């Protein structure tokens, strides 16, 4: 008994939605970056599920590229967080409103 593709899509949708809510809701920048990771993983689950169901390995190659971009995003994002912490000694996003209208 195999698992239908729609189950994977529902799981991916749940994880992606959790990530969106986390980005909008949390005030800690690190948690916001973690939520972005959740969203990236949701898309990766989608890619691998489709790759399996269409018997095409290209989807897994795209997960590989998404992983590269995620690693780059983490390195630059955490460097920005450290720079922000040096400037204001907090990482609460309510404190960073210089560009806010």
């Amino acid at each position, binding site marked *: *008994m*195999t*698992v*239908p*593709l*729609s*189950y994977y899509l529902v*799981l991916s*949708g*749940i*994880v992606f*939605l*959790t*990530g*969106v*809510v986390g980005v*909008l*809701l*949390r*005030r*800690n920048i*690190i*948690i916001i*970056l*973690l*939520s972005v*990771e*959740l969203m990236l*993983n949701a898309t990766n*689950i989608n890619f*691998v*599920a489709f*790759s*399996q*169901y*269409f*018997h*095409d*390995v*290209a989807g*897994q*190659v795209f*997960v*590989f*590229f998404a*992983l*590269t*971009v*995620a*690693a*780059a995003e*983490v*390195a*630059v994002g*955490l*460097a*920005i967080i*450290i*720079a922000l912490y040096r400037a204001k000694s907090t990482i609460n*996003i309510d404190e960073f409103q210089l560009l806010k209208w």
Partner: protein
Amino acid sequence: MEQVFFFYFAFVIAAASVLVVALRNPIYSVLALLIMFFHVAGLYVTLHAEFLAAVQIVVYAGAILVLYLFVVMLLNLRQDDRYHRQWPMAAAVGLALVIEAVILMALKGWTTPVVVTGTETTVGEAGNTEAIGDVLYSTYLFPFEVASLILLVAMIGAIILAKKDLGEPAES
């Protein structure tokens, strides 16, 4: 049997991702994300993507999460208020997405799509890693090189951003 594994992995993934957003202490959030990454790797194994499962554990759980934990502990955060003031906006967006998903599912039903058998690159008997390598170094050679460039730029950018002020003389 496959469904049992799928439901176990899916339940843990969903629960851990909710915990990542809901937990107050950032360290606990990172550890919940670690559990989620391990179960995503398990899901990849059930989908016959063994190479990606290994990469998921090595890169995500091994490298990225250690970086997160390092920064969380470096900054030594105090626990503060959990949620942002824009939670009505978050609730509205989340509700809209949920309603959209429910409507789409009701319209399309739960039928599985017709499985199209791949023409050129099937996941064959040669093994998952070999199949990925074949495609990665032939069809996707140029994106692969661009990915290495992205990593180089990210590395330089991270060093420049996290460095102390440029004019400041470096004391040993």
